[in-house]
């Protein structure tokens, strides 16, 4: 029989990651539960998963494409925008859902032990579904507008994966901070509201004046979005600044994991 020892010492990050594997069935079930209950008791049900991004697309196309007439070269603006959304939408879902997940699960947290990290982590499936829907839109629009694509399209899922990592990193930070400071619950909507304009979703990053670029790409989603479009349209690689985004992403992800693990032990005491 295996022996368990509990002391005042906190679990190390390695132990936490190992426990995710032990609890993989729970991870699957939590993720599946979120899918099942997401549109429970709504009349339109799963249609919402399509309506939501559709309206975002329409608004962005109207504001940037029709009103501001942003120049997107040979790519139709609507296709350009949906490509931008492919990374943004899963990022937004994951940031939003995982950010508030710990506070929402406080009753369970104070009653049962299981690796807390599963709570934000299990929101990944929801975001993947959203990503798949938007990506499907993209493929349809690519075909409809007969935009030429390259083999680099095969790299596109890699950048969606990066967007998920970015959303999870933000979600880990926000949810861990909100254990003690409920103030942070209000942070993710603000991040998302500002981020949708500070990320090159409906306009190319090339529009940004050269002097601002190092600051602009401090936003990890800026580099990820540009890189995704590079993969889809075979356009020019966004430049060295984009690497800054990826460096920030790694830093954010690693620190988010560390911080979440640090406060995991006190989650039950504050909820």
């Amino acid at each position, binding site marked *: *029989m295996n022996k368990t020892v509990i*002391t005042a010492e906190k679990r190390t990050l390695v132990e936490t990651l190992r426990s995710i594997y032990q609890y993989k069935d729970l991870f699957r079930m939590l993720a599946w539960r979120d899918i*099942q209950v997401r549109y429970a008791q709504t009349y339109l049900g799963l249609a919402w998963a399509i309506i939501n991004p559709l309206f975002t697309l329409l608004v962005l196309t109207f504001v940037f494409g029709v009103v501001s007439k942003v120049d997107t070269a040979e790519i139709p603006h609507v296709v350009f925008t949906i490509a931008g959304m492919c990374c943004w939408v899963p990022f937004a879902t994951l940031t939003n859902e995982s950010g508030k997940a710990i506070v929402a699960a406080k009753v*369970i947290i104070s009653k*049962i032990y*299981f690796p807390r990290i599963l709570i934000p982590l299990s929101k990944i499936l929801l975001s993947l579904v959203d990503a798949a829907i938007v990506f499907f839109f993209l493929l349809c629009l690519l075909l409809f507008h007969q935009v030429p694509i390259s083999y680099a399209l095969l790299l596109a899922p890699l950048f969606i994966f990066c967007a998920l990592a970015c959303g999870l990193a933000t979600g880990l930070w926000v949810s861990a901070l909100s254990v003690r400071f409920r103030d942070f619950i209000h942070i993710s909507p603000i991040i998302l509201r500002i981020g949708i304009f500070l990320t090159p979703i409906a306009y190319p990053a090339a529009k940004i004046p050269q002097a601002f670029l190092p600051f602009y790409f401090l936003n990890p989603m800026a580099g990820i979005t540009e890189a995704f479009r590079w993969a889809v349209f075979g356009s020019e690689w966004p430049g060295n600044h984009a690497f800054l985004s990826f460096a920030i992403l790694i830093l954010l992800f690693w620190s988010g994991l560390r911080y979440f693990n640090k406060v995991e032990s006190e989650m*039950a005491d504050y909820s």
Partner: protein
Amino acid sequence: MDPYAIRISNLSKRYLLGTEKSDSLYYTLANLFRRKKQSNHRAFYALNDVSLDIRKGEVLGVIGPNGAGKSTLLKLISGITYPTAGRIEYQGRLLSLLEVGTGFHPDLTGKDNIYLNGALLGMRKAEIKSSFDQIVDFSGVEDFINTPVKYYSSGMYVRLAFAVAAHLRGEILIIDEILAVGDLEFQKKCLGRIEEVGKSGRTILFVSHNISAIRHLCTQCVVIDKGQKVFQGGVQESIAHYLDTQLNISGSKLADRTDRSGNQQIRCTDISVYNRADQACQIVEAGASVTIRLQYQSQQPTVRNVIVRLEFRDQYGQYAFVCNNRLSQGIFKNIPTKGTLSCTLPKLPLNKGLYYIDLILRVDGEDSDVVSNAYSLQVTDGYFYQTGLLPIANRGLLVDHQWRIE
């Protein structure tokens, strides 16, 4: 082979109690820039240096007054929260059946919830699958197993939740006050199931206020009070020890009691019971008119929005009834800084026996003074009914009623 299932050594858990505000971001940030750090936190040891060894196959009852640290002990063992110091070691898988229905999702069906709940308790899917039929069978909700649980009656809900926890396989089972819910029939079934599990050689830790359940199920007991282990031994001795200390505490003068919580802005200095003739007495008759007077003193010049609550418990710790001014006539908006609050019960609905009164005073939405077992009240035979007869012990409260031949 190690004869012990769980070994606990020098276990302590400290909580920092502070006002709501001290946890806000503003407060923390403001504190960063203060030269003298303000600390609004008070350290409070929910458990203090507890050592306890539990043998394999033992059914250990954990008893003690409210707030003694029983639940904290179970939370530490099950890993929900971390100890401040000390060590817990156990062998095998530990399942904690803390509160029935925790983790149930109202929008999921009974079946999905069984799997989800089992997984939350640390079971693998295959293991749940193999017990699935037994669980459904025990819960008696076969017909509704594919219905979302939000449409369940509370009874069905409880039955399903208990069934899940009771049929999962772990070497150690932790049970915290689960018998407070469900109908009598189901409680019996639960007790039977726990007994069965106990006989199968699994180790059980059982917390309950229900002394008769403890007596019935447990093989050993530990008494916990104020975060410390005060007694460990046989069931009868432990229960006797526990009841004795309860009686002693309430014998000491209220003003001198230190086992109280709350912010102490207002403090109760005396509690006494008066009969119809307005004489102070410790023994009252069933059905008599009784007035309970609380003397208090306040530190603050004004005392607003006062809620005063007296909770009557029987000797097993079960609630008998509650007298709460907020419910009966509304909170006291303003009271003098020093004085007496009195509560009159025109006809005491208690059967004969020993009762304890817990006192809770709240001012402006915060607990001000909380004392458990503030008073022990002995009730003797009396004329609740015209006949002067009373039901036998442990048959609940007395209620006025009329029989007629029609």
